[in-house]
C-alpha cells in the first residue's frame, strides 16, 4: 500500500466544515426542540466524528484492513447500545410488573 498524502486544502475544508457544524449545533441548542435536541446533537456529532475519521485520521486513504477494524468496532458498539436500550426502552410495555 502506498501512502497518499492528503492535501492541505482538504484539511482546511475539513476544519471549516467542523467549525461550521459546531456553530450549527450551538445555535440549535438555544432553541427548545424537546427530546429532539439530544438526537440532533448526537447526529451532528456523528457527522463531525466521521469527518475527523475520514480526513484527519486518513480512514478514507488507508488500507482496507483499517476500515474492517473500524466497522468491527462500530458493530460491537451498536450491539452493546442497541441490546441494552432495547431492554430498557421496552420495559413497561407489558401489563405485568417487571416485564
Amino acid at each position, binding site marked *: 500500500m502506498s501512502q497518499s498524502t*492528503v492535501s492541505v486544502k482538504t484539511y482546511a475544508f475539513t476544519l471549516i466544515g467542523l467549525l461550521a457544524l459546531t456553530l450549527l449545533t*450551538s445555535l*440549535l*441548542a438555544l432553541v427548545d426542540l424537546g427530546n429532539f*435536541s439530544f438526537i440532533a446533537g*448526537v447526529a451532528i*456529532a456523528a457527522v463531525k466524528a466521521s469527518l475527523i475519521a475520514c*480526513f*484527519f*485520521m486518513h480512514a478514507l486513504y488507508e488500507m482496507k484492513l483499517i476500515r474492517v477494524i473500524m466497522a468491527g468496532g462500530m458493530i460491537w458498539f451498536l450491539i452493546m447500545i442497541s441490546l441494552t436500550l432495547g431492554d430498557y426502552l421496552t420495559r413497561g410495555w407489558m401489563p405485568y410488573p417487571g416485564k
Partner: protein
Amino acid sequence: MADPIALALREQFHSAEQQRETSTVGMWIFLITEVMLFGGLFTAFSVYRMSHPAAFDQGSADMEFWMGAVNTAVLICSSFCMAMAVHSAEKGKNGRLAFFLILTILIGLVFLGIKFTEYYLHYHDQKLPGIVFHDTSPDAAYVQMFFVFYFLMTGLHAFHMIIGEGILGAMLFRTLLGSFSERYHTPVELAGLYWHFVDTVWVFLFAIFYIPGAHMK
C-alpha cells in the same frame, strides 16, 4: 548521520512498509478498545438519561454552555494543527513539524485550562457530587447522577488529553533530535491518530452534556 529508516526497521519485519502497516493496525485496534471503554459509559449515560430525562435536562442546563462550545472549537483547531504536523512529517519538513506540534500542544493546554476553569465553577456552584452538592429540586438525586457521569466522562477525557500532551511532547523531542524523515515518521502519524480520537470523543461529550439543557438558561 545514519539513515533513520535503517535504524527504525526492526528485524521481524520484511520491509519498512510492512512495519508501518503493522503499527497502524495495532494503533487502530487500540483505538477500538478505547471506543469500547467510552462506549460503555455512553450506554450507561443513555439508560439513565432515558429513565430520568427531566433531571438530566436540568443538570445539562447547569453546564457552562459557551465554554463547552468554545472548547469544542479549540479542540477542532488543535486536531487541524495535528493533521498539519503529520502532513509536514510526510513532506519531511521537520521545522514545520516541530512548529505544528508545539501549536497542537499549546492549543491542547488551552482546552485543559478552560475545562478546569469549568470544574472550578461547578465546585463554586456546589455541583460536585459526593463532596459538595446542593440542589433542592425533587429530582436532586438524579441531577447528581448527571454530574457523576459528567465528571467521570469529561475527567476520563481530560486524562486522555494529559497523556496525549505527554505523547506529543515526546514526538516534539524526537523531532528536535532528528529522528523523523520523509521516509520514517510512523510515531507522529500514530500520535496523530490518538489525538484525533480524543477530539472525536469530546465532540460526543459536548453533544450529550451541553446541548440538551442549553435552551433552558
